[in-house]
């Protein structure tokens, strides 16, 4: 009885409108999917195109063990990948302790006052500053005021400043996700604030901090413009002195002062040459660079996924 009355309400006109709405709904859903597919397909096409163009160079081992050269078929990325490795190490050593410490201060210690608010706004703003501006900062301060020169040390510090906001923000998020009861339990047995953080809060949040750090470092490894600004060289035919020495004291810090080049700068140099054979080299270097960043990002994503699965408060 009721059902009959209800269907009477749906006039042909209304039925038509409902049908149209459903169609629109479906149409939009398809549009969203298409938008995603276009973006992801482009990414895939880019990777495949680059890997295929660069294959002739990638397939030879010399590409990884040769220095840059005027002859494209003999040029390699040795100085570039060693440089990237050294610069990233400095970046990690500088950015991680400072970033984590700043994150801990803002999340665990800072009282609600003008200073903590200022720092907070400041971190957000710094995340939005274009990376080339960091390059200008480093040129003015590290190169000319501190006299670090155009060296691995300068480059590492520059990239450290660049990724500091990322490390700080992820540290804070990670600390925030630790339930208050963990802290209270530790305080209850007489731990001081730092003991609570060091022995209880940090161990629980280390995974989240690591994820953020890896994402930050993967950004640093692909960063080009700020390092060009501080004067990275594009043509280097020597390696910095090895940090490990055969004779005492076995460690050398000379490499910190060495001029350098890094992967993205080597690639940029090859891209901007008109000779198509150098563009093959650019594609090969790009493939190596992409592999590095994809691996780092993938590892971070996997780590985050595992953490989310593992912890149930």
């Amino acid at each position: 009885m009721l059902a009959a009355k209800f269907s009477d309400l749906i006039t042909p006109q209304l039925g038509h409108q409902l049908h149209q709405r459903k169609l629109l709904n479906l149409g939009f859903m398809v549009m969203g999917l298409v938008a995603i597919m276009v973006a992801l397909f482009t990414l895939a096409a880019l990777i495949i195109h680059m890997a295929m163009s660069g294959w002739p160079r990638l397939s030879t081992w010399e590409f990884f063990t040769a220095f840059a050269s005027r002859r494209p078929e003999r040029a390699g990325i040795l100085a570039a990948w060693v440089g990237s490795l050294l610069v990233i190490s400095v970046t990690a050593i500088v950015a991680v302790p400072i970033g984590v410490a700043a994150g801990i201060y803002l999340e665990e210690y800072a009282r609600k006052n003008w200073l903590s608010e200022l720092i907070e706004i400041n971190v957000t703003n710094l995340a939005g500053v274009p990376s080339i501006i960091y390059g200008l900062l480093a040129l003015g301060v590290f190169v000319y005021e501190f006299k670090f020169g155009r060296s691995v040390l300068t480059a590492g510090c520059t990239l450290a400043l660049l990724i500091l906001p990322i490390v700080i923000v992820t540290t804070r998020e990670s600390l925030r996700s630790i339930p208050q009861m963990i802290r209270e339990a530790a305080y209850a047995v007489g731990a001081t604030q730092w003991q609570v953080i060091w022995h209880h809060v940090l161990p629980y949040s280390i995974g989240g901090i690591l994820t953020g750090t890896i994402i930050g470092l993967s950004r640093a490894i692909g960063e080009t413009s700020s390092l060009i600004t501080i004067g990275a060289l594009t043509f280097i035919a020597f390696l910095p002195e090895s940090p490990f020495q055969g004779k005492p004291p076995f460690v050398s810090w000379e490499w910190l002062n060495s001029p350098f080049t890094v992967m993205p700068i080597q690639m940029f140099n090859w891209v901007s040459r008109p000779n198509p054979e150098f563009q093959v080299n650019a594609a090969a270097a790009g493939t190596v660079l992409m592999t590095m960043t994809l691996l780092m990002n993938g590892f971070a994503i996997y780590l985050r996924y595992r953490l989310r699965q593992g912890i149930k408060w």
Partner: protein
Amino acid sequence: MALRDSTPLNPWRRSRDRQRWTERAIELLLLLAALSSIATLLGILYVLVGESLQFFQQVSLWEFITGTRWTPLFGDPKYGIWPLLSGTLTTTFVALLIAIPFGTAIAIYSSEFAPATVREILKPLLELLAGVPSVVYGYFALLVVTPLLQQVLPWLPGFNMISAGAVMGLAIIPLVSSISEDAMQAVPNTLREGSYAMGATKLQTALKVVFPSAISGIMSAYILGTSRALGETMIVTIAAGLQPTLTFNPFEQAATITAYIVQVSMGDLPHGTLQYQTIFAAGLTLVLLTLVLNIIGHLLTKRYRERY
């Protein structure tokens, strides 16, 4: 108790005192680390403003902001910022033309339509898209997109702002989509349920209820995307050209502010010369541009913020 506290050599009390000092010292160290962000900002201001002040002692501010020719490295130097500004604004505009529709559609789809499993897969994939180094995107713009476009438009020059801008748009899609999606996810479900109860479809709910409620967050996603596009360097340096040209035609080549800074930096200009100072004046312009944008964004978000 009284006895214990009054004994100066009591080991328990000594260790407690030491602990208190350690606590204070650690807090101070952590504060210093947090202050490093302020030091960074002050450093940026000091360098940019300091060098720019020296620059503007020799070049009039009026010439800088009204001049239509930028030729600092030529025999007859001219210091009008407009050619660099036009390149920056045009490539940014092209990038937004790609990033805003795509980013918004992806955000609406994955926040309102996609099942949870699809969303879980989608997010990391988009993050990978955001993680591609910009120099790789530059390669893509110069050696893939431009040749493709040239097949349709044979007169297109090898360096042009359209392909640089389009690829830059692709690069900032993930930024726009992820922030917009977060904003839409923050809209309480009661609003959606109210809309469904009135008989609205998902699309109607998404466009007429969720989108307007999340507008302040979406706005800031657009703003962040814009400032990323303004500051993006390698894509435009590689693919948009290095010749400062006063044009808003995306099919031409033109240098952006960032491309100019890179070009000069590669030339290794001596410290302290006027040419060296131009890159700081250009950098200051870029920072002011993003600053104005952020202030507008802040005001807009405040104006449109919904309280639930």
